């Protein structure tokens, strides 16, 4: 645990992108935000903590990039984003991890990764509001949380649970992003009721799918343009 702290000592800010729910766009939002920040010449890292469905390397087109070994491991850099994930270690195989295995794997990744100096480390969170959240809160207490929700009631209800948990554990909540927005401003309303800052909406963009694995293309989508307006607010 002390090793994890040391490896993160050059990181100014850790922002976890979570929601509790799967399929709401956490991975797409965190990877695209990392690309956008890197374009704005921020030193940015992306840590994919989804051990069951790691996605960041797929979105960034980095499936064959191995971290290099040097007194730990140095994350490979893709479009200026330092990327760390379980993916290079498990390939395309299954990961039959139980909760405590996942905790160990997370600690191991935190202990071996030499992030160096970073302005921001984005953490792509797995779905769930159990171990995955509690582990991060415990091991990276300074982490701030950016929550993603779709306009669906099913998403909003889970996000509400996540926010309650984060509040009770004393975590800092930066705000919420609405993804795959359409029509009504459901998430904005929810934020007002919960006293959470609403950071903005990103629409559903059918062009996104073709841009997966192609960062240059992804950055030119409407999705990225709209996300940029939000990322600019993340001072």
């Amino acid at each position, binding site marked *: 645990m002390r090793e994890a702290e040391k490896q993160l000592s050059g990181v100014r800010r850790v922002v976890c992108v979570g929601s509790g729910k799967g399929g709401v766009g956490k991975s797409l939002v965190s990877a695209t935000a990392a690309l956008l920040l890197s374009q704005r010449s921020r030193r940015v890292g992306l840590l994919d903590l989804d051990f069951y469905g790691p996605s960041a390397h797929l979105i960034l087109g980095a499936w064959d990039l191995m971290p290099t070994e040097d*007194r*730990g491991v140095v994350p490979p850099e893709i479009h200026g984003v330092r990327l760390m994930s379980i993916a290079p270690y*498990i390939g395309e195989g299954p990961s039959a*991890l139980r909760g405590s295995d996942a905790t160990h794997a997370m600690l191991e990744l935190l202990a071996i990764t030499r992030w160096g100096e970073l302005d921001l480390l984005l953490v792509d969170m797995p779905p769930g509001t159990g171990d995955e959240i509690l582990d991060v809160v415990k091991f990276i207490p300074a982490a701030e949380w950016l929550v993603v929700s779709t306009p669906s009631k099913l998403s909003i209800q889970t996000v509400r649970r996540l926010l309650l948990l984060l509040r009770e554990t004393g975590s800092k909540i930066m705000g919420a992003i609405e993804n795959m927005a359409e029509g009504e401003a459901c998430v904005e309303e929810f934020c007002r009721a919960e006293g959470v800052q609403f950071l903005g909406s990103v629409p559903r963009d059918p062009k996104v799918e073709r841009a997966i694995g192609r960062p240059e293309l992804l950055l030119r989508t409407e999705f990225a343009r709209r996300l940029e307006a939000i990322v600019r607010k993340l001072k």
Partner: protein
Amino acid sequence: MHEWALAESVVLTVLRVAEERNAARVLRVRIKLGELQQVEEEIFSTALRELSKNTPAEDAEFSLAREPAVLKCNRCSHEWKVERDKLKPEEAELIHFLPEAAHTYLRCPRCGSPDFAIESGRGVWIESVELG
């Protein structure tokens, strides 16, 4: 791997123990290395010596011992030892970085399940510290 980071944690812990017990010198430190973790002993020893220079642990003898990797199937309860030289080298390398990758590459030899617990053989810890 993270031999240097590990060595630093070990040295810091040893020095803290020495300070708490008002010891002038550290004589001997016994360290256990989990087999799955596959810490490079040579790098680790060098790191321990380097990092303890000019500290009360400077002349300490750091002895390293391996703890075998034992896995236990969560389905049929079979327990087995992982023999490193029987692993494919690429897989051994990946498991060495991330022991949990074992769940991707190893299977219970009795029932074939990927659902097993790593009973021992992960991590690095200090077994004992002798102070002078």
